[in-house]
């Protein structure tokens, strides 16, 4: 079936380093991809999104890259901080903004 999945369940980085979190998706009809951050006891928090007609989008300290050829999505966090420690999910949807299909999540741990 269609799915969105993550390559690594846990990523440990040193404070100040850059982090890269990866995601593979299989639904080539998806129009819209979103990265969420989930801290313990909280709901998914929107980080950044990208439309399927783009290959890169930058936010504050974050960049999302989309490679439609290999159906791959990544989230880059610059100068990772302890407050970035959380589980990160990618999600995909169609242009109508219907149901989100989430990946399994990657836990980012930032070492001081």
């Amino acid at each position, binding site marked *: 079936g269609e799915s969105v999945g993550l390559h690594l369940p846990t990523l440990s980085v040193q404070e100040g380093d850059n982090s890269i979190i990866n995601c593979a998706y299989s639904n080539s009809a998806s129009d819209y991809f979103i990265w969420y951050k989930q801290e313990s006891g909280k*709901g998914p928090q*929107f980080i950044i999104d990208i439309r399927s007609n783009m290959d890169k989008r930058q936010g504050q300290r974050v960049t999302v890259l989309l490679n439609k050829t290999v159906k791959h999505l990544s989230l880059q966090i610059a100068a990772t901080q302890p407050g970035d420690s959380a589980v990160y*999910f990618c999600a995909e949807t169609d242009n109508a*903004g219907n149901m989100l299909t989430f990946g399994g999540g990657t836990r980012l741990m930032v070492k001081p």
Partner: protein
Amino acid sequence: EPEVTQTPSHQVTQMGQEVILRCVPISNHLYFYWYRQILGQKVEFLVSFYNNEISEKSEIFDDQFSVERPDGSNFTLKIRSTKLEDSAMYFCASRGDRASQHFGDGTRLSIL
């Protein structure tokens, strides 16, 4: 920044009882969603709601589930006769014109 709010934060219920989970979406949003997350698993779509009717639902959303927008601000999820396997975090989400959905911090539902 506007946010989605959910009540209660934790609900404990006996198996077979009815529960109602409540959500106040962001005020100018028109699309509403319920998701659930079983402990340690990915977030799963339940139902989407627009213009006072269900627009999409998953296989999880069976006859025991219902949603309602009883007034201009609340959006509720009712489980008519709870089962042990209904124990999970339930997240409400809403969106405006963009496809990105914004989530509340969830209700932890524990069925005894």
